[in-house]
């Protein structure tokens, strides 16, 4: 009997967002689960927190973290890990997930015990090399030990191929996922965005991933952003979660479901430019249809990509820490960014990376520029959102 003959129950849900609340509650019967952003929940005032906790007793929820920075060279803080574990328990979450990204960097200044830390406020791709694979696996194991249950790991969208990368994204992800045996949160929109930005075929990238480990799938939409660079117009695809899901992502879902015989949880994420619930439910129905279409003849997927990639050099953990710190500076510090554009060799030297002269050969200048813009925009939006939220709280607490 083939694997496909075994009954699988896929689950379909939405990301819980305050502005979508009324629609979600009204249509709760049509959803199998909700995904709650850990940091958003943690920042709620007590009345709203109590309400969301109540909701978590009504429908299965998953907790989704965005601030651990699992793939950073520096370890996630114990406080953040424990907080995420506590939220998972409080909400009786079925799973807890996090991104394979870095969100902060920290480096000890030479000749000093003081360390300089930068909080980016945005998910960023770390250097993809064997050293970051090793460090990331250590972090995942440490977090899993605290949680007492597997942590679900998500691939991120990136506007750039980070400096110091020697592995492709799929090689990097596959090495981490297979080494940790962790369940995989496959964000198809992220995969699609990265493929577009690197002129790759997302369907080919998909089959390079360990689809047998996929537990959850994220669907969302993004948009093109443009910039002028050296008198030419350049565009990149930004995964902003503010648009409808593009048809290719549904195709990718169908392909993924056809190669993943296990039960899947499919979540639609929407973070802004909110459509009517009707539109979101239609997209959910479309996702259900895509999965159902292929469920009858799903075949288990066998990885074709060799797991061990050939590398030219060995980046140490310290090198990675310096690269991440340089990237964090370029993304979030306008003066450093300007300095980098004027004299990149000097920026490398200042970051104690001067000996990697060939790093500059493959710099994605446009990507760095757009990433800095995206970080700045996101941080501004977060401030505005916080102000709006404070305002709405005042109105709501009548």
């Amino acid at each position, binding site marked *: 009997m083939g694997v496909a003959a075994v009954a699988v129950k896929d689950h379909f849900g939405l990301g819980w967002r*305050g502005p979508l609340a009324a629609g979600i509650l009204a249509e709760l019967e049509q959803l199998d689960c909700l995904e709650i952003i850990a940091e958003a929940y943690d920042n709620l005032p007590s009345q709203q927190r*109590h309400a969301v906790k109540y909701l978590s007793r009504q429908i299965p929820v998953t907790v989704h973290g965005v601030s651990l920075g699992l793939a950073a060279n520096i370890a996630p803080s114990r406080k953040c890990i424990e907080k995420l574990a506590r939220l998972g328990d409080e909400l009786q979450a079925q799973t807890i997930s996090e991104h394979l990204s870095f969100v902060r960097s920290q480096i000890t200044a030479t000749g000093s015990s003081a360390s300089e830390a930068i909080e980016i406020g945005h998910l960023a791709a770390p250097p993809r090399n064997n050293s970051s694979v090793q460090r990331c696996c250590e972090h995942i194991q440490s977090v899993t030990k605290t949680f007492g249950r597997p942590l679900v790991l998500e691939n991120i969208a990136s506007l750039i191929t980070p400096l110091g990368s020697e592995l492709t994204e799929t090689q990097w992800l596959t090495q981490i996922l297979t080494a940790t045996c962790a369940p995989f949160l496959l964000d198809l929109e992220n995969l699609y965005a990265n493929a577009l930005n690197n002129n790759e075929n997302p369907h080919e990238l998909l089959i390079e991933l360990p689809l047998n480990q996929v537990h959850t799938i994220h669907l969302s939409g993004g948009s093109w952003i443009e910039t002028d660079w050296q008198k030419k117009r350049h565009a990149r695809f930004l995964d902003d979660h503010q648009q409808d899901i593009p048809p290719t992502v549904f195709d990718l879902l169908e392909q993924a479901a056809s190669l993943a015989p296990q039960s899947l949880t499919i979540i639609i994420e929407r973070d802004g430019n909110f459509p009517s619930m009707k539109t979101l439910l239609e997209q959910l129905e479309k996702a259900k249809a895509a999965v159902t279409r292929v469920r009858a003849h799903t075949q288990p997927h066998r990885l074709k990509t060799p797991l061990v990639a050939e590398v030219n050099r060995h980046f140490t953990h310290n090198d990675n820490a310096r690269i991440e710190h340089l990237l964090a500076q370029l993304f979030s510090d306008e003066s450093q960014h300007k300095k980098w554009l004027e004299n990149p060799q000097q920026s490398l030297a200042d970051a104690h990376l001067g000996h990697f002269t060939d790093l500059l050969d493959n710099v994605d200048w446009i990507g760095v520029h757009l990433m800095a813009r995206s970080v700045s925009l996101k941080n501004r939006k977060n401030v505005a959102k916080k102000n709006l939220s404070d305002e709405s709280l005042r109105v709501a607490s009548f």
Partner: protein
Amino acid sequence: MFPFNLPGPAFLGFYTILGLALSVLLWWYPRRVKSSSNVDHTRPFFNAPYSLAYLNLGANHCLSICAFNLIDRGLMTATETGYICSDAKFTKQVSQPLEHALIQYAAGTPKALFNANKNVLVKAALHSIKTQLVQQGLLHSNPVWLPIKLLCLSILAVAGITKIIVALNHGHTNIIFLVMIMSFFIIGVAIYAGPRVSTEGKETLSIMQGLLAQLHGRMSELKPGGFTQEATLAAALFGLSALPAEVFPYIHTILPPVPVSSRDDGRSSDSGSSSSSCSSCSSSSCSSGCGGCGS
């Protein structure tokens, strides 16, 4: 010592303590019974905006929300004069008894929305919602606390009037402070004592408010067309006036009348807890409050 023989200031102290004690009793009495069952009261409200509206602000608010929902779905029209009009054929397209009743009430000719609760069918549908809320322990039924309230009012009135008579008989005419304190307690108890909504009901409203709090920032993005119950649920909780008038331009015509008292079990109710307002009608056109816009 017989309290009515107390000197003026001492009796005022006694009367104040009595008034406070009775107020505490009336505050405590309806809350003393908390449901011991594990029945989940809130979940049913996720897709029951009419019940939520009734629980939140009473019968008139419930009628407003129902009319809003029907208008948004294109099954009813609102005129500038605050009247509603529908067609009997639309009864086939609705499932809720209140919707059915309101369409029948307004079928053919325009009718005043807030006279609808005199219609037998509408009245029955509203009563059914109220009965369910009372049975769920979310609303207090009048009989539970009304006799206690009347008893407290009687005690306050009899004690005060008796002392006034005793004082006048003794030739003391300085009774103004007693009259003031007596009026304060009697009016206060008459208006505020005996909550309409039970502890469980308040908990339910609190959870719903908590879940939907962030919707305030998105009210302007709500879309008309009745595709989902989103706008209706939001309006049930935050009031119709919280909805964007440019998207739902008929809102001002179906706002409930200004309440005489918000404590009368919703026979009158307010026009939105978050922002009860006359936002869409100028003072000159509001001859009788919001609900009076053109009606």
